[in-house]
């Protein structure tokens, strides 16, 4: 994604980001669950039209409730806030005002890491991706670190 598009899509980001990878096929949900082989997303139409993986039993809806069911299959449960918790990996969910989920970011110390759609990974403040594209942060989930480690951060290009 050209960085010149960042102000359009992420007006709250400004210069407060660091690019950590080049574009790749996986998406933001793949990234936060640590499954870089498969793109995760619910199918909007009949499953035969979906190109993405979505756990069996999770509703094929772009809603927070469906995402919670899907991510429960890999050990995540809802939690109240963004504060780092020892022994837990934490992720944030972004959604539009109409409730449609748009994005997920994972915590990395005091910052957050994201895969931007089909484009690159960046490190950013949580509120940096809030805006017209992803909406606002609406929920947090966590899972014990022992369940599955996040992939190591990619080196700078």
């Amino acid at each position: 994604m050209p960085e010149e598009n960042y102000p359009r899509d992420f007006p709250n980001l400004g210069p407060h980001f660091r690019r950590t990878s080049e574009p790749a096929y996986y998406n933001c949900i793949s990234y936060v669950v640590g499954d870089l082989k498969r793109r995760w997303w619910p199918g909007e139409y009949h499953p035969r039209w979906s190109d993405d993986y979505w756990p069996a039993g999770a509703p094929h809806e772009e809603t927070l409730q469906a995402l919670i069911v899907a991510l429960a299959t890999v050990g995540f449960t809802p939690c109240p806030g963004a504060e780092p918790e020892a022994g837990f990996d934490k992720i944030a969910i972004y959604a539009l005002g109409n409730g449609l989920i748009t994005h997920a970011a994972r915590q990395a110390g005091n910052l957050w890491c994201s895969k931007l759609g089909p484009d690159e990974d960046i490190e950013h403040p949580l509120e940096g991706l809030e805006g017209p594209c992803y909406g606002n942060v609406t929920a947090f989930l966590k899972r014990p670190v022992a369940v599955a480690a996040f992939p190591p951060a990619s080196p700078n290009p």
Partner: protein
Amino acid sequence: MALNEANLDFIRNAAEDRDGNGRAASAKAPESAQQKFIRLRDEWKAQRGPQSSTTRLVMHPAYQTIIGMGPAALPLILRELATNLDSWFWALRAITEEDPVPEEVRGDGEAMAAAWLNWAKERGIQW
């Protein structure tokens, strides 16, 4: 409806033209199929935005126009898929009305690309 033999012939010929035999014919046209595909591909990649949903990514007008190119776009999409993995599976399904991707590899871009390239090889479609 699956691809019939006439459509497959059209696709094979389009692939041959792109490889050189049809350069004179292409030069007469204001824009060859390959030039059109590259223009639309670049427009799609520049404008699609950081969407997480594949469905939303492929609804961009430039991507839909590539689908509208029909069988002529097939070798061009396959070549792109073989060299630069991206969300081309929707277009391939829409153009061919087939889907060789096994359910168990849904979401795995590399495996899905391999399934489509193998599908094309089995039908003698070059890219």
